[in-house]
């Protein structure tokens, strides 16, 4: 599959969302994919969190396979305090916050992410029957230098309170 061809990115996006639904179904006591989609359409927080994680996981697998400069990919939460995140009634953030650790930042990687994000937004809207989001992926790329010196988003890896979760590593 050639990710630079838009048609391939579209089919990858659809496959990612389908796999995320299956992942979610498995985590929620093996309910059916149709039941997952119903829960997602109803805005069930727990289902939505699992589903977003599934999307992040499969997106990471594709990005890691496509771009050899990527060392690892992480997901993190963007919020103030653990207390902030731990309130069950809080609606899940609609964005998937990823940190890509790459040897270097390249225009090709940015373009790949943008293309995939556009395709995911379209597929997301079709699957859930909702309005189109502006973004689904919030991706911060950190290079080796930033990671080693803990600068920019590389600083989160020294954090006691915001701990990125590893999704994919080379």
């Amino acid at each position, binding site marked *: 599959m050639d990710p630079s061809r838009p048609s391939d990115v579209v089919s990858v996006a659809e496959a990612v969302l389908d796999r995320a639904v299956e992942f979610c179904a498995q985590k929620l006591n093996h309910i059916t994919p149709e039941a997952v989609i119903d829960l997602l359409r109803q805005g069930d927080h727990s289902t939505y969190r699992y589903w977003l994680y599934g999307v992040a996981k499969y997106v990471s697998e594709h990005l890691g396979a496509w771009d050899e400069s990527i060392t690892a990919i992480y997901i993190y939460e963007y919020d103030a305090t653990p207390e902030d995140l731990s309130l069950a009634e809080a609606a899940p953030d609609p964005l998937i916050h990823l940190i890509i650790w790459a040897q270097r930042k390249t225009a090709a990687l940015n373009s790949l992410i943008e293309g995939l994000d556009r395709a995911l937004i379209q597929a997301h809207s079709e699957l859930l029957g909702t309005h189109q989001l502006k973004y689904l992926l919030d991706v911060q790329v950190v290079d080796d230098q930033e990671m080693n010196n803990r600068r920019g988003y590389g600083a989160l890896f020294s954090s006691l309170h915001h701990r990125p*979760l590893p999704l994919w590593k080379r």
Partner: protein
Amino acid sequence: MVNWQHMAKKLVAVPAQSVSGFVVSEPARQDPWDTVLMQLDAVAERIKLAPGFHAILRQPERELIVSIPVMMDDGEVQVFTGYRIQHSSARGPCKGGIRYHPEVNLNEVRALAALMTWKCAVVDIPFGGAKGGIQCDPRQMSDNELQRLTRRFAAMIMPIIGPQRDIPAPDVNTDARIMGWLADAVSMLSGKAITMEAVTGKPVPLGGSLGRKEATGRGVAIITRELLKRRAQSPSDTTVAIQGYGNVGSSAAMLLDEMGCRVVAVSDVSGGLYHARGLDIAALNRHMAAHPGCLLETYPAEDGDRISNQDLLTLPVDVLIPAALENQIREDNAPHVQAGIVVEAANNPTTSQGDRILHDRQILVAPDILANAGGVVVSYLEWVQNLQRYFWDEAQVNRSLEEKMVHSFERVWDFSQHTGTSLRQGAYALAVEKVAAAIRMRGMWA
């Protein structure tokens, strides 16, 4: 019937701590426990802490490491490592969250436990400090697996927790639902209907407190108001910028707006909004409530200019409230901060270099240990309500939070003024002094 032979084989096949299975590892980071000890050593020197007390506080009081076997959904048994560390119970039962993360380790939990000791002391609630964690990737686990893990962990730390010993709460990757399971497990194992006072951060129907959701933001707003009083500045003459519009940032914005402040800028990960005459916070919050899970970028831009998160930090405002990620105010942007007051709603939003620059520029910084302590204060109020089996309305919770935050602020302010230190140094010094005083008054049984 369980096939133990089969299970034993599987136990060998899945070694402990094989959580991620990844090969690449991030560059080493400074040990958080070393950092906490360095902070303590500096404070001890400043307040001339007796060497014996200093030695006591340099060690956690009790550490429990457990290996937690969990039957996964596929029938395999995995063994997870869990920790519960009690840094100090000198001032009361230990208090602190439980986090689930693949990289949780002993020194991280030690550091967080000590920080809880200081935080509880600063806001003068009768708790010591603790923290717990399980090395696991909760997003990879099903609801059922998480529940089994939580219940087994509860059983294994039961000997050292309880309403008069150590009261867990949510932390990174744990939530009210997990606290409900924990409370149920503790109750069942102690033969009680429900021991609700054993855990805080529970769902409201299980004894969770009203007012918990806005507690951290409310505390931030109260501290801001008290700082303005000390500067003889009226809220109506005050402009505020808030970085981060999650639960804490949006609650603080709403309350400061109600107090009469002009909230001129807010931001989230999608960027920010700025209106020099003040944003319509009520309308903004109505929009966010009507579009759950949406970001600020969806709010119509007529009510302000779009700005970046970095622009927000250097706006010409009176009060800056970082309520998002860590390390936002650094060596590179601290010289450009124009606010006279910084209130740290997030944990560690200012680096040590950034802090030094703000201090040299005489910018008043309300440290995170005080400014975002509203959450732990309402955890304490939840425990109080649970113990007396009598639940307050939200107004009563808010009044008690207000009293605690104002009193704590006054103590830190007076201490800092008296000793000529920053509010951050003052808060830590006061906390260590309070814990040391409790140890001294209890007498040395050694």
